[in-house]
C-alpha cells in the first residue's frame, strides 16, 4: 500500500529553538503511528507543518504522493487529512447533528436540510461503529461522547489520515479504553492514524509503530512489540545531555517540609494525588521523578496553596499551612518557582524591577506604610540583575522583553532573595537555554547548601538525577518509591515511572 503521509528531512528553526531537526516519518493506510514526546519535543510543530501552517526550513511533506505547499491548508484538508484537537472545536449549545454538519451543511434551497443531515450522521455513526445520539445537545454530553462527535466531524469529510492531538488528556480511564478501541477500528477500516501523546500505556495498547521525539530530534522508531513501557520512557526522557552539576554531599538537617496523606483533585475533579507522604529535610534536594500527568502538578499546587487539598496536611517546620492561600503559605516559609512562569510567575508588562518585588512590594524596604519606595525597588533590581546575570539593557525594561531563560531567572531570583526555608521548584528549567539551566541548577544547589529544603519536580529525568539527594518516583498519583540518588539506577527509575512494579 502506498504512503498516505510522507515526511522527509523536516527541519524547522524557531528563534532560539530547533523545533524539528531533520525528521522523517511515513504513515500508511490502516496504520496507527504514535508520536511520543514530552511537551516541547516538537510534536505540534510537526503537525502544523503537515497542515501547511508553518513553513519548514528544510524537508518535504507529501500527502498521497502530492507535495504540500506552505499555506495550502485547504488543500491538505481536501486531500483527506483530519484533525481532532485536544481542545474540542464544538458549539456547546448546538446538537450533535448540527455540530457535525457545521461548515458543509446539506441544503434544500436556502435552508438546511435537517432530515438528510440527521440521516447522514446516523449513517456515519453506523459505518464507523461510533454510536451517538444525533439530537443530543453537546453540552449535555460527557466529554468522551463529545470527543466522539469531534471524531465523526473529522470522518465525515472522507478522511484518509486522522491526527489525534493528546486525545486522552481530558478523558476518564473508561473513556480512554473506549477511544483506544475506536482508534483500532478506524485503522482496520483503512484510515491512517497519527496519535500524539506522552502517555506510554496508550502507545503500548494501540500503536503499530512509535516515533519518539525529544528536543526536536527524532530519537527513533520502535514498536510495542520491540519495546516496553520502560524502554519508551527512557527514549522519551532521554539520556543525551547529562548536565553534570558539582555538588558536595548533602548535610540534611531537620524535617523542614512535611506532606502528610495529601489528596488532591485535578481540573476534571478526578483524584490525581492519592495520598502522598513526603518529608524534605533542610539541606537536601528531594527530586520528584515521573512521566508528566501523574499528579506532579497537582501535588505542587496543593503544597503551595494554589489548589484545594481534599485531605491531608502540609507542614513547614512542624506547623500546618493554610489551604488555598498562596500568600499565607509563602509567609509560612515556602518559596515557589511555579511551573507556568508566564501565568503565575510574572506580570509581563511590568518592569523587571517590579516583577522582582512582586510578592514583597508592600513590605520594608520596598514600601514604607502605604507608599512604595521606588528607589529601593530599583536599586534592588539593579543588584539582582547583576548577581543573577539577567540579560537586559535595564531593569526598567518590561519582563515581556526577556528571553525565557532570563524570565525564569527573574522568578528564581525573587524566590531566592529571601531567607529561604523551603523551596518548591516545578519544572524550573523547562524550555530555557542551556546557560540559564546551568545557572539555575547552581542556584538550587547553593540554596540547599545554605540550609534550604528543596523539593524539585521535573519531567527531565536527567535533571532529577543530577540534582537530587533523594529521588521520589511518582506514578498514577502515588509516590511508588523513594530512593537515595547514590543507588539510583536509570532503568529501575524508568520502570517505576512507567507504573510497573519494579
Amino acid at each position: 500500500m502506498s504512503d498516505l503521509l510522507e515526511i522527509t528531512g523536516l527541519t524547522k528553526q524557531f528563534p532560539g529553538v530547533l523545533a524539528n531537526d531533520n525528521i522523517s516519518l511515513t504513515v500508511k493506510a490502516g496504520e496507527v503511528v504514535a508520536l511520543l514526546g514530552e511537551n516541547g519535543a516538537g510534536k505540534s510543530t510537526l503537525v502544523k507543518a503537515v497542515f501547511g501552517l508553518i513553513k519548514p526550513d528544510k524537508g518535504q511533506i507529501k500527502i498521497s504522493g502530492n507535495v504540500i505547499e506552505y499555506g495550502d491548508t485547504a488543500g491538505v484538508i481536501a486531500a483527506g487529512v483530519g484533525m481532532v484537537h485536544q481542545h474540542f472545536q464544538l458549539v456547546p449549545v448546538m446538537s450533535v447533528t448540527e455540530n457535525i454538519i457545521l461548515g458543509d451543511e446539506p441544503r434544500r434551497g436556502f435552508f438546511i436540510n435537517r432530515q438528510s443531515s440527521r440521516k447522514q450522521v446516523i449513517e456515519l455513526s453506523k459505518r464507523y461503529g461510533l454510536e451517538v445520539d444525533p439530537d443530543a445537545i453537546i453540552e449535555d454530553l460527557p466529554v468522551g461522547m463529545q470527543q466522539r462527535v469531534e471524531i465523526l466531524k473529522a470522518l465525515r469529510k472522507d478522511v484518509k489520515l486522522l491526527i489525534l492531538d493528546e486525545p486522552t488528556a481530558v478523558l476518564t480511564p473508561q473513556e480512554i479504553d473506549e477511544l483506544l478501541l475506536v482508534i483500532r477500528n478506524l485503522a482496520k477500516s483503512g484510515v491512517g492514524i497519527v496519535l500524539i501523546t506522552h502517555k506510554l500505556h496508550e502507545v503500548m495498547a494501540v500503536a503499530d509503530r512509535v516515533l519518539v521525539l525529544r528536543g526536536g530530534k527524532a530519537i527513533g522508531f520502535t514498536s510495542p512489540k520491540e519495546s516496553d513501557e520502560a524502554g519508551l520512557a527512557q527514549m522519551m526522557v532521554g539520556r543525551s545531555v547529562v548536565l553534570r552539576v558539582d555538588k558536595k554531599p548533602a548535610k540534611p538537617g531537620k524535617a523542614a517540609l512535611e506532606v502528610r496523606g495529601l489528596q488532591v483533585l485535578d481540573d476534571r475533579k478526578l483524584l490525581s494525588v492519592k495520598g502522598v507522604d513526603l518529608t524534605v529535610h533542610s539541606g537536601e534536594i528531594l527530586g520528584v521523578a515521573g512521566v508528566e500527568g501523574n499528579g506532579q502538578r497537582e501535588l505542587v499546587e496543593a503544597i503551595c496553596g494554589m489548589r484545594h487539598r481534599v485531605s491531608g496536611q502540609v507542614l513547614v517546620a512542624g506547623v500546618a499551612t493554610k489551604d488555598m492561600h498562596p500568600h499565607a503559605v509563602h509567609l509560612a516559609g515556602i518559596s515557589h518557582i511555579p511551573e507556568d512562569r508566564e501565568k503565575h510567575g510574572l506580570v509581563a508588562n511590568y518592569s523587571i524591577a517590579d516583577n522582582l518585588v512582586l510578592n514583597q512590594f508592600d513590605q520594608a524596604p520596598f514600601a514604607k506604610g502605604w507608599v512604595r519606595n521606588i528607589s529601593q525597588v530599583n536599586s534592588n533590581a539593579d543588584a539582582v540583575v547583576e548577581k543573577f546575570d539577567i540579560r537586559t539593557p535595564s531593569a526598567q525594561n518590561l519582563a515581556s522583553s526577556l528571553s525565557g531563560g532570563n524570565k525564569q531567572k527573574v522568578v528564581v531570583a525573587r524566590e531566592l532573595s529571601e531567607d529561604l526555608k523551603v523551596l518548591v521548584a516545578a519544572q524550573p528549567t523547562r524550555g530555557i537555554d542551556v546557560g540559564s539551566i546551568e545557572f539555575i541548577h547552581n542556584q538550587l544547589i547553593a540554596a540547599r547548601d545554605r540550609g534550604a529544603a528543596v523539593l524539585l519536580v521535573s519531567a527531565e529525568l536527567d535533571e532529577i538525577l543530577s540534582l537530587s539527594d533523594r529521588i521520589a518516583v511518582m506514578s498514577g498519583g502515588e509516590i511508588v518509591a523513594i530512593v537515595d540518588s547514590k543507588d539510583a539506577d536509570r532503568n529501575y527509575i524508568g520502570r517505576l515511572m512507567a507504573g510497573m512494579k519494579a
Partner: protein
Amino acid sequence: MSDTKKKGFDLGNWMIPIIAVAIAMFIAGIMMKLQGADPISAYKTLFTTSFGSVAGFSATLGKATPLVLSGLAVTIGLRAGLFNIGAQGQLISGALATAWAGYALTGLPAFIHLPIALAFGIFFGGFVGYIAGALKAYRGVHEVITTIMLNSIIMALSDYLVVYHFREPGQLLTRTSEIQKSARLPFIFSLPLGFFIAIACAVLAWWIMTNTTSGFRFETVGRNKFAAWYAGISVKRTLVMAMMISGGIAGLGGAVETLGVTYRFEPAFNAGLGFDGITIALLGRAHPLGIIPGAILIGGMRAGASNMQFVAGVATELVDLLMALILFLVTAPLVTRFFKNTTSKSVTGGW
C-alpha cells in the same frame, strides 16, 4: 515598539488619540461640506467660542468638570482590568443623592454643607459601583453586563424617586427643589471650583496609582490576576475596591455637576456625561492625567456647539458625531488589546 516602562509621558503612546481626533475632525468636516456648510468657519467658531475668551474658557471648564471625573472613573476601572460601562448610572445616583442633600439639609454653613453634599454623591455612586464589583468578584458576573443593567435600573429608579418622593412641591415638571445657596460650588477667579476638585482628584489618582501599594495592587490585578493571586494580593477585594472607587468618582462627577451647574436634579440633566467618560478614558489612554486634555477638548466642543450652530449653521449634533468618530477610531485598536490581553502594550500599559 518600545519596551521600556517610562514614568513620564511617552509621545509615541499619544499618537493614536491625537491622530484619531484629527481624522474624526476631517471626516466630520467632509460631512459638513456635503451639507453645504463651511467646516473651517464652523471649527473656528467652535474653538474661539470655547477657548477664545475667559468667559468661554470658564464655560468650557464647567463642561469639562464632570467629564474629567467620569473619565477618571472609567480609567480607574480599566487600570484594574475592569470595563466600567456604568459611570452614567453611578453619576446619576451621585447627582440625585447630592441634590437631596443640597435642598433637604438646611441651616448649615457652606463649609459643612458642601462637603456633606459632595460626600452623598461619592457614597451613592460608590455604592452602585460596589454592587457591580461584588457581583464580579464573588459571583463571577461580568462587569460590563451588570453595569449596563445597573444603568437602566438607576435611570428608572431616579425617575421614580423624583416623581413620587423628591419632587419640588407644587411643581409640574419632574424635578427636585433647588439646592440651598450654602451647597453651591463657588467660582474662583471666574473659574468653577468643581474643575479644581476634579483636577485634584485626577492628580491624586495618578499619584496613588504610581506610588502606593494600593495602586500597585490595582495595576497588578489589572495586568495579570493569576500572578497577583500567587503574589498574595486579594484579587476579589481589589476588584470590589476598584469598582467602588470608580463608582465613587463618577458619583462625585454627578455631585459637582449638581452643585456647580444645574443646582437641582432633573432626569434630563446629566445625559450622556457618564458615557462620554468612556470616550475620554480611552482617548486619554487610561492615564489619570491623560484624561484631562481629553475632557477639556470634549468640554470645549460641548460649550461652543450652540454658538457654532448660530454662526455657521451647523447643528449641535455635530459634536456627538465627532465624539462617535473619535470613540470609533480610538477604541478599535485599544479594545481589542484590552480584551485579548496578549500584547505587552495593553490599554493599561501606556506609561
